[in-house]
């Protein structure tokens, strides 16, 4: 083998490796490096503080609240999005003008910018003049404070995320449903399987790769939530909607405590990494792949 033949494959992958290194690998390591310094972005000197940033982070009750918020937000958003989308998908998985229209309608939030959505929902959820409070008033319920009270603020953000997410998730579920051969349902029909049993024993297990895929991408995107919080609540009231990414942004780009923000970033990295690992471990054995 000549030298050229040995080197050629490396030459071929070099551009991809380069881009990957500069934009993905380097920032991760630079973040880990920065997390051990006290630095304000401008000062020419960085003070090495070891793991002090992490100690401070876990002593900060606000950060504990942020972790809890992120987790609750993630669990609610993912479970509600997946659950509702699956229901929609099973309902909409048929032909007809009406079903096509509903599919299009629930997909439309997906293509609207999050900033517009945030502004729209801020208005809808306005405690005094909002459409939502007017609507529930018609049914004789008491007005809800929505974004303006810690008891309802986080769930309000979850509602927005679910509303935006179900269109896309439903579409992916419908694609998954349509990849299941029709004759399997006919066989089940001849085997006198009741609809619920058919769903539990056949449809859902055969959709599990789709469910797995959607859970992963929804988890990741819900940990990345930023725009709605920045526009609708700025983490408030009383820190009730402050989540990891917004917390990192607050410390990094408003208080210019880069080291501290990087430490929080490392925590985010570890959490997402662990969740992904756990997911692969737990579900890989039980997933049906055809």
């Amino acid at each position, binding site marked *: 083998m000549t030298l050229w033949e040995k080197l050629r494959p490396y030459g071929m992958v070099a551009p991809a490796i380069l881009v990957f290194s500069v934009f993905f690998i380097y920032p991760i390591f630079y973040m880990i490096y920065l997390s051990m310094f006290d630095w304000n972005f401008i000062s020419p000197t960085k003070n090495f503080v070891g793991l002090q940033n992490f100690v401070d982070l876990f002593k900060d009750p606000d950060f504990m609240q942020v972790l809890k918020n992120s987790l609750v937000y993630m669990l609610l958003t993912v479970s509600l999005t997946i659950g509702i989308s699956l229901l929609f998908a099973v309902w909409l998985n048929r032909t007809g003008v009406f079903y096509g229209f509903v599919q299009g309608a629930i997909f439309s939030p997906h293509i609207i910018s999050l900033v517009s959505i945030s502004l729209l929902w801020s208005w809808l959820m306005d405690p005094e003049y909002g459409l939502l409070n007017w609507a529930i008033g018609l049914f004789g319920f008491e007005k809800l404070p929505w974004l303006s009270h810690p008891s309802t603020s986080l769930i309000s953000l979850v509602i927005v995320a679910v509303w935006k997410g179900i269109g896309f998730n439903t579409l992916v579920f419908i694609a998954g449903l349509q990849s299941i051969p029709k004759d399997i349902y006919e066989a089940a029909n001849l085997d006198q399987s009741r609809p619920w049993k058919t769903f539990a024993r056949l449809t859902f297990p*055969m959709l599990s790769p789709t469910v797995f895929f959607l859970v992963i991408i929804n988890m990741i995107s819900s940990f990345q939530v930023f725009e709605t919080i920045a526009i609708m609540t700025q983490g408030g009231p009383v820190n009730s909607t402050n989540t990891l990414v917004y917390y990192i942004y607050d410390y990094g780009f408003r208080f210019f405590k880069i080291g501290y923000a990087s430490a929080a970033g490392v925590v985010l990295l570890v959490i997402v990494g662990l969740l992904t690992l756990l997911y692969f471990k737990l579900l890989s054995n039980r997933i049906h792949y055809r």
Partner: protein
Amino acid sequence: MMAKIELKNIGKKFKDEEVIKNLNLTIEDGSFTVLVGPSGCGKSTTLRMIAGLDKQTSGDILIGGRSVNHIAPGLRDVAMVFQNYALYPTMTVRENIEFGLKNRKVPKQERDTLIHDISEIVGLTSYLNKKPQMLSGGQRQRVALARAMVKQPKVFILDEPLSNLDAKLRNQMRTELIQLHRRLGTTFVYVTHDQVEAMSMGDVIVVMNQGVIQQAASPAKLYGDPENLFTAQFIGTPAMNILNFSEVQGLHIPAAERIGYLGFRPEHVLMKQDLHREGFTLDGEIVTRESLGAETIYQIKSKAGVFFVKTFLEPMEMNSQIKVTIPYEQLYYFAPDGQRIRGIEAREKSLSFVGGK
């Protein structure tokens, strides 16, 4: 347990397209009936209507004398084997076989006995805990059969069950299915597009084309006594030779104006001149020769048209110009609309010459 299936004036439309037109058919109890025809002829649709997976637009379906028009597929006492097996990929072989029994609330003990017996019969005992995707095509086919058999239905419905198997396995499964039918004695309704499969398996063969039954008869009758041009050309390999009667010369036939086409089977053509056999003779040129071992198939070009000849255990004919004879009793006559015309006797050619000149 009578399981005669009667289809009465069945019509089926998909949107505006009529796929089955006024179909009447009785499938006798315990018979092995094969529906055969080119793709799109409505054979699968007919089968699916018997199973209840498609609903007929008009007409009645009776199984064992009972109308099943409004009975759900699962309650018709039919079991179906699908072309792509339609096994449940989420379940093991055992669960696949057991699913229908569980849904019918068959007690555990009885289920176990049934599964044990059936998996013996089809030879699946050592695969019971595997998932279908781990099995070969032939094994999957057996699981599909076992799943159907375990329900002990009145009627077995098989929709091209062998089309996904390779040729060797297909022949083997064909034999096994015939034996299975003898053993169970239940009504089998079988759909295929392969006329060889149909001929080798069926007691009764129903030839369909464009949603209309062309002929329903035993294999021997279909071969020897076809009702029309379609059946004549569908059964047999190579198909029956059909010549346009207006281009045929040298046949003296009464009432010849009624005849549109002349047919004869490739295997009935005599290549050797045999003075003792009287028949219709044709001069032609051999275009191709295909040797299949015991058989040889020739394509011959004559003035009346191109036709095929099949010989059996004879040395290959090397001359390119040839004169062949078809015995008069092996000639078939068809009207211009394709209907068979029976009771025509051709006369000696020499007589026709005398009469003609």
